[in-house]
Structures are given as structure tokens and as C-alpha cells.
């Protein structure tokens, strides 16, 4: 698939700049676009349980965001170093940026040093195929630098909010550079309503890196991906396989869950696995392990949009997003939600 095809039309003002709770609204007070079989329905997020049925399985990501953005002093002046993927305490993939609202790449030479607080950080070499990312080695554990100097990663379209803004009710294991945001609107009452319907919930873990990659290669499939630590437990693998065997739907809450379950998928079913994945779920590969996705609205020419196109095809994405634009839905992590299902509730 040509990267140039991974686009849609959207006016520039369709971005949620702040989380609903900042204005005293509930987190679940957002809209829900439901796309099933080429049809779109407009709903509120609180209606989510009515689109699911007993025997369906929601899979959630238990990873919690860490304050991964740190001020750094470089040869080029004061910059930001946003951590992305942890290999070990001293070695991460990181993104040096001019500022939260000004991306790189910076004119960095391999081996160049930075100072983060009292720590010396050395940018070893570029990540192959993704020139804005670097292998970063610190003489002090990054974990302690984050605790001391870290702030939540944010970009130009929104302010920085308190750290708990970036948590969901499933956040349990710190490690993501950015919030896995799809579960943000799931509140206790939504969860109780889901469980009352007979929908079960199972966890995976995937520590997500810095924002959805802009695809820079001429073809979508040619884009380099960076790895992310993940695990699927035996219990969750069993729950997914039993749901499928019983004719239920497995619905991923967020693109991170799709990546984890597809990475654990074999033609015999989903198996327990732990490691790192850089699997790129795109229309060429398709989806096998999941029957639905609850997610936000994604930017053009990103790996997240390619993942959505793996469910809907690019024409299906454009059709859904045209509807979302027409009806005034809001994009990004504090915006509205989109539920995509391969098939509707049994009637």
C-alpha cells in the first residue's frame, strides 16, 4: 500500500485540547462512533456496553505511563529528551526534540553527549530507518532520572496535565512513554455495566513508545518500526482462544492491545509470550487475533491509521472518518472514541 493513500480530509480544529475531567465532566463524557459492517452509529461512550454481548472479551493494556520527558543540555542548547523504549536501566531508545511543540531531528552526531540533571547521556547511534530516534546510554539509571526530572510527554496541541490524567483504571505496571489512552473513558460505572452484560475483561502488557510513527517510507509496509516490550499471559491467551471457540468477539482496547495479541497469534490461536515486538499491523498483514477495536481518532500517515485500515480497509477508514468529521468528533488522546466491530451483536 502506498503511504500517500493513508490520508483523509479533516479540518484543523477537530482536536481535543484538554481532558473532560478538567472542566468537571466525567471521563466517560465523550462521544462514541460505532462502525460495524460499513455502517456508522453515533452514540455516547456510556452506551458502549449495549454494543457488546455476553461472551465477548475486552482486552486491556495494564501498562502505565511514566513521566518520560526530561529537560537536557546539549551542544545545541536546551532540548527535551523523550524516552521511548527501555532495553535496560541504562539503555533506552529516546527522541531528542527542540521542545514539546517542536520535533527534531536535531543535528546530532553519533556519540554526542547530553546532560540530564547530573547524568551524562550519550546518543550512540540513530535507530535504523527512524532518524528522529536514538539509542541513548546513561551513566545513571534512566529509571532514577525519570523519578527525579521526568514530566509527562505532551505535544503542541495540549498542555501538560497532572500525571494521573495519563492513567486509566487498568494502569498497573509503569513503563509506557505515553499513555495507552483508549481505556481512558472506561470508568467504574462503565466497567460494572460491561460486566453486568456478561462481557469479560482480560489484560495484556505492552509498554508503548513515543507517539504513533509518521510513516516516512514510500510504501506503508516498508516503514521501520521500533520494538516495544510486551507480554501475554497464559490466562489471557486461554481467554482469547475460548472466546473465539465459543463464537464471542475479542475486542482490543487500544492499538497496543492489537499489536500484543497479533504478536502472540499463530494459526493455532493466541499463545502466551513475553519479549519485544515491532510487529506492524497494516492492511497487508491484516488482523487475525481480534474481532474489534476500541480506539481514538488517529492522524493521517501514521502507523496507528495503518492499523485501523487493517480492520476497515483505507476506504472504510475514510468513510468512517468523513462521518466523524461531519458530526464534529474530536481527535487525539483526550478526544472521542471509535468502536470498530467485525460483526454486530447477535439479534
Amino acid at each position: 500500500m502506498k503511504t500517500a493513500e493513508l490520508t483523509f480530509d479533516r479540518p484543523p480544529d477537530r482536536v481535543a485540547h484538554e481532558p473532560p475531567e478538567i472542566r468537571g465532566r466525567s471521563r466517560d463524557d465523550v462521544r462514541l462512533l460505532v462502525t460495524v459492517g460499513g455502517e456508522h452509529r453515533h452514540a455516547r461512550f456510556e452506551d458502549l456496553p449495549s454494543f457488546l454481548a455476553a461472551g465477548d472479551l475486552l482486552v486491556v493494556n495494564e501498562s502505565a505511563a511514566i513521566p518520560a520527558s526530561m529537560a537536557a543540555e546539549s551542544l545545541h542548547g536546551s532540548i527535551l529528551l523523550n524516552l521511548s523504549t527501555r532495553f535496560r536501566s541504562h539503555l533506552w531508545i529516546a527522541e531528542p526534540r527542540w521542545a514539546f511543540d517542536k520535533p527534531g531531528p536535531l543535528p546530532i552526531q553519533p556519540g554526542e553527549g547530553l546532560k540530564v540533571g547530573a547524568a551524562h547521556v550519550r546518543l550512540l547511534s540513530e535507530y535504523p530507518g527512524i532518524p528522529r530516534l536514538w539509542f541513548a546510554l546513561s551513566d545513571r539509571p534512566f529509571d532514577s532520572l525519570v523519578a527525579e526530572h521526568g514530566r509527562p510527554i505532551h505535544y503542541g496541541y495540549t498542555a501538560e496535565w497532572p500525571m494521573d490524567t495519563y492513567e486509566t483504571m487498568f494502569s498497573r505496571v509503569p513503563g509506557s512513554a505515553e499513555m495507552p489512552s483508549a481505556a481512558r473513558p472506561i470508568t467504574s460505572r462503565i466497567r460494572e455495566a460491561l460486566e453486568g452484560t456478561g462481557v469479560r475483561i482480560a489484560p495484556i502488557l505492552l509498554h508503548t513508545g513515543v507517539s504513533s510513527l509518521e510513516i516516512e517510507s514510500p510504501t506503508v509496509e516498508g516503514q521501520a518500526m521500533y520494538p516495544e516490550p510486551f507480554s501475554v499471559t497464559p490466562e489471557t491467551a486461554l481467554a482469547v482462544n475460548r472466546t473465539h471457540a465459543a463464537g464471542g468477539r475479542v475486542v482490543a482496547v487500544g492499538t497496543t492491545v492489537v499489536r500484543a495479541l497479533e504478536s502472540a497469534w499463530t494459526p493455532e490461536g493466541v499463545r502466551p509470550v513475553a519479549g519485544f515486538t515491532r510487529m506492524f499491523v497494516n492492511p497487508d498483514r491484516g488482523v487475525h487475533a481480534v474481532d474489534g477495536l476500541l480506539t481514538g481518532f488517529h492522524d493521517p500517515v501514521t502507523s496507528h491509521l495503518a492499523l485501523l485500515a487493517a480492520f476497515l480497509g483505507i476506504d472504510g477508514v475514510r468513510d468512517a472518518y468523513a462521518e466523524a468529521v461531519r458530526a464534529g468528533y474530536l481527535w487525539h488522546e483526550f478526544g472521542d472514541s471509535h468502536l470498530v466491530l467485525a460483526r454486530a451483536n447477535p439479534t
Partner: protein
Amino acid sequence: MEPDLGDPERVALITGTSRGLGRVLAGFLAKQGYGLIVTARNGVELNAAGADLRSRGSPVVSVGGDVSDAAHRQRLVDAAAKWGRLDLLVNNASELGDTPLPPLAEASRENLRRVFDVNVLGPIALVREALPLLERAHGLVVNITSDAAVGGYPGWGVYGASKAALDLASKTLAAELKDRGIAVVAVDPGDMRTKMHQDAYPGQDISDRPLPEVTLPFWAWLLSQDPMKVTGQRFQAQAAVWEVPT
């Protein structure tokens, strides 16, 4: 004086370090402060590689020679012994044998012997000779393998059979050395734009293959794992998923 970075007391021995994958991996480790022992048959290229690695701030010992030569291997082990430990042994030097690659049934006995000498007997001997140093460091042995080991591709029989033997040696050594705290893995780096790959496809355009830098994320990952948790595994460096057995 450079600030102390990361793990300065780690020592790595990489064979076939003058170019291609070995040189890229050595450069990555040099920037992380590893003490390096590098070796290759081509002394001129090796010296250039050694100077380049030293400029990145790491101590580098460069020893020219052939891993099928016992006296040369002794010099490599002696160099590691001066540091008192060996944290990482990468058996990367490989021999393609006669080119253009002959069909297996037409390969000469000399060709087979030479390829097995460098690709199988040399690595096993290096492990044997470096055992005390590896044991002291709870070291990791990485044997560089190839998809030719399992492919059955026409023309790749000599090289592939040697790598298949190396795969079995890796698995067996892993099982035998586990109790001594030494880990052994096999790594298939995948197709890359290297001189060896070009030698295998004389006159063909291989510019669509990625440069060996494509494997750096894998090395960053592998060398951050607890070696005992991955010992006995065979990894593909360019794969989408790198798994730790659970």
C-alpha cells in the same frame, strides 16, 4: 577524560570484525564502553577498523588471523585473559567457500573442509579455549547463523550445512554449559548488504538489502537480557518479535 559510561568492565571478543556485521556490532559496543578484542583475516582492513573503534573511546585489542588456526585462537584468548574475563564471544567470522556457490554434489572435499573448519570447528574450539574466562564473567556466546541452515536453497548446501551444524552445536553447548553459568544463543542476522552477501550473488544488484545497522535494535535488546533466560534460543535479528521463553 570521557565520563564513565554504562558497563566499562565488560569485555567482548568478536571474530570477523573488519567489515559488515562484525564491524557494526563492534562499533555499537565500543560506544557502550566495552573492552573489545577484534580479529579478521584481512590485516589492512582490520587495522582500519581497530583505529576507528579506538576513536570511539573504548580499549581495543586487534589481532589479525584465521579462527581455524589454533595459534591465532590462543592469541585471542590470551588477550581476553589480560582483562581477566569474557562477557561476550561473538563467533561471526564465516567462510562462504568457493564462489560462485557450487551445487552440493559438485562441491570439493577441500571446499567442504575449509567451510566447516571456519564455521563450525573454529567456533567450538574458541568456546572450549575461552571457557574459564566465560565462566568467570557468566558470559554469553553468540554464534552467527543463517537461514541457509534450514532453507535447503540450491547452491547454499556447503555453507548451509556448516551453519546447521553450528546451530546444533549452539543448542548442545547451551544445555551443557548452563550449569556453569555460560549462555549460548544462535542469531540469524537475515539478508544484509555486506561483502559476503555480494560474494554469494556475484554481479547481482543487492542494494535492496538493508545495511548491517538494521540489526542494532536486536543487539541492544539481546545484550540487555539476562543471558540465562535466553540460552539455547535461536533468534532472527530482523524478525518482528524477539521472545524470551516463559
